[in-house]
């Protein structure tokens, strides 16, 4: 009877929370179906044409009954809202101390890179009982990263970073789908998530050809692409130093404040004139078209790395 399976595997912490809510909703639905369908069947039999049932004094409404079935479901729905919002909040809030994976979607494949530098296509290897957080973007149209066994899904939007996280609880192989229609081979933009024992994961991570870590790749780009020519203490150009910058509030030239998060750094690389740091001239060239999505992510990983360092004195 495996082919008549009703539920996907429960393989993450989130999957238990979502399924609990799903079962509650199913029970409430069954309750309302009973409350509506049983009277309909009962009335249909009792008051069928020609039956001898008592039809005297039919009621055409009662304020209290109407109020009852207005207010009752309203409170019930508010309760359901609160429960589902709590779970949603946990799904959406990225936990600290997670394994970082970077994801780039394109027509029609998933390109993934682990922080250690290991790359994968349409496959994601992760250790069990470990929080994994992903930063995702698309280099063309909107895609959506969907792992049914984990009950998580997040659109992958060009021009933006979106995040998704999960903590797998069972080893095994699970479907990875693109859930947002993205063109001809949308249904082939699929893959698998392989959940492994931590030791097996470590072995896997070190297998195959070794590549530099994401931060090292970012540092190399920082020097090779000329970023360090301006953004360094002994530069002849007046450019802000980037050490200690990451996720810090930043005064802008127009008087507003920005937070130097991934999105801000990305925009600053591709559209430098969009948000100018207060006290600096608008002289940075755009790198749009000169850096791939992966390279931008590597650069940001490097900026994040040096974001923890104290800013050097000029």
């Amino acid at each position: 009877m495996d082919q008549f399976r009703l539920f996907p595997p429960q393989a993450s912490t989130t999957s238990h929370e979502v399924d609990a809510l799903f079962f509650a909703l199913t029970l409430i639905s069954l309750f309302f179906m009973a409350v509506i369908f049983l009277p309909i069947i009962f009335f249909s039999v009792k008051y069928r044409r020609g039956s001898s049932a008592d039809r005297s004094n039919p009621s055409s409404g009662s304020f209290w009954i109407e109020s009852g079935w207005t207010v009752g479901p309203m409170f019930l729905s508010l309760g359901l809202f609160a429960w589902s919002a709590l779970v949603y909040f946990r799904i959406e809030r990225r936990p600290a101390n997670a394994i970082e994976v970077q994801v780039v979607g394109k027509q029609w494949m998933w390109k993934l890179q682990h922080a250690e530098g290991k790359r994968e296509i349409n496959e994601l290897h992760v250790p069990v009982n470990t929080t994994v957080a992903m930063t995702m973007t698309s280099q063309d149209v909107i895609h959506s990263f969907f792992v049914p066994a984990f009950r998580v899904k997040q659109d992958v939007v060009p021009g933006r970073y979106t995040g998704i996280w999960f903590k797998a609880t069972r080893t095994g192989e699970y479907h990875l789908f693109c859930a947002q229609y993205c063109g001809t081979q949308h249904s082939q933009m699929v893959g698998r998530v392989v959940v492994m024992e931590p030791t097996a994961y470590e072995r896997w991570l070190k297998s195959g050809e070794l590549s530099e870590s994401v931060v090292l790749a970012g540092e190399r780009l920082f020097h090779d692409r000329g970023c360090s020519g301006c953004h360094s203490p002994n530069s002849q150009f007046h450019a802000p130093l980037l050490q200690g910058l990451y996720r810090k509030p930043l005064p802008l030239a127009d008087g507003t404040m920005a937070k130097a998060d991934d999105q801000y750094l990305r925009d600053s690389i591709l559209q430098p004139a969009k948000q100018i740091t207060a006290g600096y001239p608008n002289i940075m060239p755009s790198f749009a078209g000169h850096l791939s999505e992966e390279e931008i992510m590597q650069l940001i990983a490097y900026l994040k790395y040096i974001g923890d360092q104290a800013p050097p004195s000029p």
Partner: protein
Amino acid sequence: MNNATSEADSMKSATEVIVDRPGEFARENYLSIHHGVKAWLLTKDHKRIGLLYLGTILSFFVIASVAAALMRIELLTPQPKLVTSETYNKLFTIHGVLMVWFFLIPSIPTVLGNFVLPMMIGARDVAFPKLNLMSWYIFVAGGALALWSLIHGGVDTGWTFYTPYSTTYANTHVISMAAGVFVAGFSTIVTGINFIVTTHKMRAPGLTWFRLPLFVWSLYATSLIMVLATPVLAITLALISVERFWGVGIFDPKLGGDPVLFQHMFWFYSHPAVYIMILPGMGVISELITCFSRKQIYGYVWVGSASMAIAILGFLVWGHHMFVSSQSVYAGMVFSILSFLVAVPSGIKVFNWTATLRKGSIHFATPMLYALGFIGLFTIGGLTGLFLAALAVDVHVHDTYFVIAHFHYIMVGGMVMAFMGGLHYWWPKISGRLYPEFAGKLAAMITFIGFNLTFFPQFILGYLGQPRRYHIYPPEFQIYHVLSTAGASILGIGYLMPLIYFIWAWRHGRVAGPNPWRATGLEWQTTSPPPEHNFEETPIVTGPPYSYSPEKDADLNLASL
């Protein structure tokens, strides 16, 4: 407005008030008075325009159904057998575009609404008969553009036209299809204005707002949405064309645009449009339930107000289509709570329909079977809507077959069942003849069974994780796809049967007489088929609607008429 005295009057029993000449076919009627193609194409008669719409939307329904049938056959196997992925994507796009804009949105308003709204309020026509004919021509022009796009290779964006796929990456006829929908939208707006003005200005003497049949209330609420929401769709489609044609950066981030902005604009229209597609159906159900249980509606004011509440709240929930789009978490919460609240007025309607049955005298005629089927399917569709409003569950089932099943329960299980029920109910008025009752009941039951077999397995598929718009799928999902396809073939029979017996009954059905259902609405107080200007003299209304008397009608036998 002294309801107290008039209510007592009307309680005399409906059947006494009504013109009752059973078995009489009005020789001089809106069909017989003019002949020839020209008379049809230049008609300003709302009844003939309703029939023009009926023919047009049924043609689109057939094309869109063929697309659905091809998809269901293809999905029998996990790997492709019949069509390429490119064709499959075009099939679901054509199915969605035609069903939404060229069948569901116009269905009840332009066919049943056009035909019966003026008669229900005792008017000789709509407020702007020429505008009414113009709206049909605009609709045909929009449809022609859509068909042109289809014949020249189709569109593969899905009916949602999500950017930047639709503006930059799709190599299909996006602009002409968007133009078709754009043009058809004006037809919707014109019809909406016409209905609003008709309802305000053309009511018969004594027909106060709270004596209006609930179908009129629902059409009024629908028309408000049509007039207020459709312009936003027009703007959105125009912006798509501007970006696609001239490369102006609006939605594509490569051009400096924002793809999620498109989703806000699209759903700002398309969620209210969902209510355009269901409110008129709810109105029809109120007519059917009262007539075939011979009962005054339970909670008239609540049912009518619920229509208006849905129309208003429906504008505030668009973001529930975007919980995983990267919209802010807090915006998601606001849209979630509002989506839960919009379920309340729908619930009120269902509870009141159920309560109406109590102490009635229930006739299981074909329209009533469709109405009861509607309540069943709409309830399931509505309750599964709660799953989608619940943020955390939506994250999992968003863009899966769960959503497909949910909205087909509302759109097909709800609106199409209501449309079929209404068509059977008013058919004697439209044609002057009865449809064959046994075949009607059989078709209603086949439709109900076929529908559930088609779409219930899709809830399970969706929760298992089957994404929508997938041409190829993992083999473990096959069994539910096979069940769904089997159901679709039964559903197809349920739709074909009425098509055949309605055509037969047009000439050969038994003569219906003015009021075969002994119904209280003004549309039944004139001959069948009605004369060109509906009433020989303007009716005067003295009481509330639905003044049926279940006690008196306990042994009434409608079927033997």
